[in-house]
């Protein structure tokens, strides 16, 4: 099912930010990961119960590049300001992968702006025994098998010789490099995760080859009272592969 998105633009502290929205109901924010190539139709079930807002991070998709955004804290401040601009009081927040890193960091500081939190295969922790794959070592045209167990769920693969594909991948890798070239984790995050005080659900694909599901044990230990739901067979793009994972998020948030 494809979603009819409405696009609006907000200027957040000087940064043009495109926000897609669809659906009706209580406000739900979805913070995407480090790639925007695959589309967002997998969110369709959530638009039936929620007003889903999908902002493009600065440096991704329809939002402007902003070279000064070099830490996750820059994104925390960006989204705090966006929530104010959009006059959204409290929201449900779903963060995927890199977006989960932003969302968990945001929640350690601003749980009062959240109703519930869902972290889907979040980046941001260093779990030495189960390290996150270094995305910069993977060629953009070779990344697909790392993303999913069921590649068919991702739709037709991009043409690796297509210049627009190459340039867009380079742009988004550049935005990621600004915050994560040295490391795609924050060694201080574990120290503050106990500050997350809203109900929190972790969602993971059992066969995640980018951020191993084994990292979930560390997360659920540090975020008090949090729950975990895993899906199998599913890789990093568990939401694309498993409609039941999206359904589980909807049920958790609605409960």
């Amino acid at each position, binding site marked *: 099912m494809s979603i009819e998105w409405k696009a609006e633009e907000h200027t957040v502290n000087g940064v043009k930010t495109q926000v897609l929205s669809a659906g009706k109901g209580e406000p739900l924010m979805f913070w995407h990961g480090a790639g925007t190539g695959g589309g967002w139709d997998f969110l369709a079930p959530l638009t039936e119960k929620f007003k889903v807002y999908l902002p493009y991070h600065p440096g991704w998709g329809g939002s402007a590049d902003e*070279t000064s955004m*070099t830490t996750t804290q820059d994104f925390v401040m960006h989204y705090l300001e966006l929530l104010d601009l959009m006059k959204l009081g409290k929201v449900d927040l779903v963060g995927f992968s890199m977006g989960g890193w932003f969302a968990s960091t945001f929640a350690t500081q601003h749980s009062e702006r959240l109703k519930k939190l869902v972290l889907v295969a979040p980046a941001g922790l260093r779990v030495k025994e189960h390290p996150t794959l270094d995305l*910069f070592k993977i*060629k953009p045209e070779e990344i697909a098998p790392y993303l999913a167990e069921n590649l068919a769920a991702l739709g037709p693969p991009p043409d690796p010789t297509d*210049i627009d594909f*190459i*340039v*867009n991948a*380079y*742009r988004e*890798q*550049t935005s*990621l*490099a*600004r915050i994560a*070239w*040295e490391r795609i984790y924050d060694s201080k995050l574990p120290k503050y995760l106990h500050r997350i005080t809203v109900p929190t659900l972790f969602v993971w694909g059992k066969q995640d080859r980018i951020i191993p599901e084994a990292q979930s044990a560390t997360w659920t230990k540090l975020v008090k009272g949090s729950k975990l739901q895993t899906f199998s067979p599913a890789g990093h793009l568990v939401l694309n592969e498993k409609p039941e994972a999206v359904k589980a998020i909807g049920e958790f948030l609605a409960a």
Partner: protein
Amino acid sequence: MATWQDDLQFYTFHFMHYTDLPADQKKYDSLWVDFSNKNFDAKKGHALYQRYMAEMVLADRLGYDGLALNEHHNTVYSLNPVVTIMAAALIPQTKNAKICVFGVPLNLEMPNRLAEAYAMLDVMSNGRLEIALPLGTGMEYWANSINPAVARARFREGLEVLLQAWTQDGPTSYDGEFYSYRYLNPWPKPMQKPHPKIAIVGTGSPETIQIAAEHGYAYSSVFVPIVAQEKTFAKLREEMPKYGHEFTPDKAIFNAIVYVAETDEIAERECKEHVQFFFEDATRTTARYLSPPGYISAEQLRMRAAATASHGGFDWEALTQQWRVVFGTPEKVANTLGKWCESANSSRVLVHHHIGDMPHWKVVKNMTLFAEEVIPRLRTRKKAAAAPAPTLQGAK
């Protein structure tokens, strides 16, 4: 205005490749970044260092004005990952030639330590140092712990620190985004005042030309055809006065791969395979390694993606037509180089005499013939004023 012949100087540039590659080397996409160092044999490396240093010493004896070196990492392309060590080794073995360190990528070193290292070389050599400040190829950023997405901003700050260290008596302090110094006070300070001559070296990107123009520095283009070098110098001539600097012919440093022999046929026969090694093997790497994330803008990447690969391709016709390689009799080589110098008003010729995996005897032959037969022809070539300067329009 000074013309190119008033202060004509010849530098020989030695990349010091590691040439002993395994038989299956062609199967690797890149001989940079991830080509395993298990393929390095220290005994062969030692022999190459001895030989390459001897070639630079010969260049000094032959009267070359400068001995140019550079630095690369994780690659067979260069045995000089710490190029200042090679420069130091050459100082006591040479007498007159300038030691041209072209150079340490500024971002890979703390700028105060670079100020120290270069000052040491300048004082040790009694003021024979010249330097160039490269951003470093994209490949260096895969090999070192420096973020390519902020490389250009970091470079500008590092340059500021370096110049402050050399132009102001210490201790001073510096508060920046990338560097901060409580006591910037490096000892020693350079012999040449306020500092050795500085060039910017790059592939002609707008940003690097801009830095050279702003500071009035020389510019040296590498890895690009002659016509592109000419365009770069034209841009430099145009931009420099805007910042209150005068363009002088020594600020346009031409780069050319040259081979001189008795006849054009002998020259081609003797150099071709080594030129092939240079373009096909020594420089072979991937588009991804050339442009790590953020090293260039997305729009520049679009242009690069549309253009033909600059690394790892060998097309003899194209190379000779674009004049990336100049080979032949002394007369032919002198005429070709002379035309370029006239056209670009350039008085600095940076010649690659050691090409690819060329054996020692050919390097000696090439270097000697160039010094004894080509340089005198260029020095006595009719002044541009006496004969109208040909343009580069003829070169494709």
